[in-house]
């Protein structure tokens, strides 16, 4: 048994002629909360998809529990995915199923458990995220934060070894953010899983993560514990962590010379 449950080795990925990742190396040790941070559009979510085997890398490999993800056939990938739970950015709850049925979905689809046991398990999972009382509601009746907690209950329904969080804090009010933050840490420690968080919310992520990778321009530009990174003098990390407007990441999208564009109106169509 390898000490690292997920290993990303010299991974490159690109599509439609655009290179998104060039030679990324990361390791995710068992039982830890590891965060991948970076600006919008830096390919963080794509990394999760690569781990889940939804897309294939153009070079390098991702190993989950020692198995190379993109070398598996369909059944192999499905077997690997049963070790994973994923929380999507907006929850991705099944809108035609109730909260209860949403959490019960993976159990009903993937196991032969009797309905009475599924009922108990679902209520346990919902209790863990504090929404046992909401089991009869439909997803449309939930607030954004509640939907994400239900989705979290669904992600842990089959007690996965790895839980992946795609932007778990985006668009939440501070109280809900705190609740989710706390949940991720507690669930990780209580279930003994490994958590991979993709986020750009510095404060919350630094509060719960054991280790953080910074991704920019398709490369890992910095890594370390949250404390190390707070002290980092690397210009990009400094800009990101302290939320400065201008720095290595420019405020302006690449454009022609401002003056000549304003004056030479003919050339602009």
């Amino acid at each position, binding site marked *: 048994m390898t000490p690292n449950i997920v290993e990303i080795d010299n991974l490159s990925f690109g599509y439609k002629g655009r290179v998104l990742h060039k030679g990324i190396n990361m390791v995710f040790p068992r039982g830890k909360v590891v965060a991948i941070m970076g600006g919008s559009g830096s390919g963080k979510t794509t990394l999760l998809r690569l781990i*889940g085997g*939804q897309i294939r890398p153009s070079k390098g490999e991702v190993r989950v529990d020692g198995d190379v993800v993109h070398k598996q056939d369909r059944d192999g*990938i*499905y*077997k690997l*995915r*049963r070790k*994973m739970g*994923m929380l*999507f*950015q*907006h929850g*991705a*709850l*099944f*809108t035609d199923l109730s909260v209860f049925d949403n959490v019960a*979905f*993976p159990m009903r*689809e*993937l196991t032969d458990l009797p309905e009475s046991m599924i009922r108990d398990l679902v209520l346990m999972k919902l209790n863990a995220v504090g929404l046992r009382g909401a089991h009869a509601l439909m997803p449309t009746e939930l607030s954004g934060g509640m939907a994400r907690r239900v*989705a979290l209950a669904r992600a842990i329904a089959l007690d996965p070894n790895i839980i992946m969080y795609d932007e778990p804090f985006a668009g939440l009010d501070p109280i809900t953010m705190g609740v989710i933050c706390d949940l991720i840490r507690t669930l990780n420690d209580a279930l003994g899983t490994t958590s991979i968080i993709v986020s750009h919310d510095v404060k919350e992520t630094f509060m719960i993560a054991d280790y953080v990778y910074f991704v920019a321009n398709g490369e890992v530009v910095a890594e370390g514990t949250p404390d190390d990174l707070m002290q980092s003098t690397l210009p990009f990390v400094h800009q990101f962590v302290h939320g400065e407007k201008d720095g290595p990441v420019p405020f302006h999208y690449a454009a022609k010379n401002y003056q000549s564009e304003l004056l030479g109106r003919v050339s602009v169509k």
Partner: protein
Amino acid sequence: MIKSTLHISIIRTLRGIGSRMIERTWRLGAGARLFFLTLVYSGESFRRFNLTLREVYSTGVMSLLIIIVSAFFVGMVLALQGYNTLQKYGSSEAIGVLVALSLVRELGPVVTALLFAGRAGTAITAEIGLMKTTEQLSAMEMMAVNPIARVIAPRFWAGVISMPILASLFSMVGILGGYLVAVPLIGVDDGAFWSQMQANVDFRLDIVNGVIKSIVFGVACTMIALFEGYDAPPTAEGVSRATTRTVVISSLTVLALDFILTSFMLEV
């Protein structure tokens, strides 16, 4: 100068046509692949028939009202128009034959398929498209559940089951509508209406062929709706465009298929 701009615009038009052709061909291939995968992963739709049953409810049962009401009006109009022409030749008794044959052979399967594309097809496309947009399909994939087996195949079979049922209902209700206009309203003889119909409508050649047509239309309409939803760009605009395309492509496909099937069935 003028010559060169003309030149450029011609090249641009040709290039546009070419790229659209390539795009169409690509989509055709992708659609065929989805159809194949749907058939391969259909086992679950029958092993867990409840999944399919639920979709029969939302595609078939929910289309009942529109089918029955339209069939009724179509039948009544057929009787009115038919009588108008037939009485000029003194054979108004043949009105039953006219109504029944038009409905059973053509209007039943075709109009049902067109209404189905508008009512159930758009609903399927929008639903699948939104499931994709809200990452529900991705979530399913990540849970190691195959969305084609769990989402696409049950809807496909539900459509294939629903269409012949709806088409038969359409024909029957249409004939009843025609009867109501022809017999009580116009005063055609009741016995002549039915007996002429029975003498001229053949069970195998007309009714069974109509059912076969509707099954083929069911496969085509449902598959187009599913593919458009599955292939829709995950944006609000993408889903709305896919929904429109479902109606346009389904309607054209149904009419074209109808011509092909009819020419086979009439054995010309």
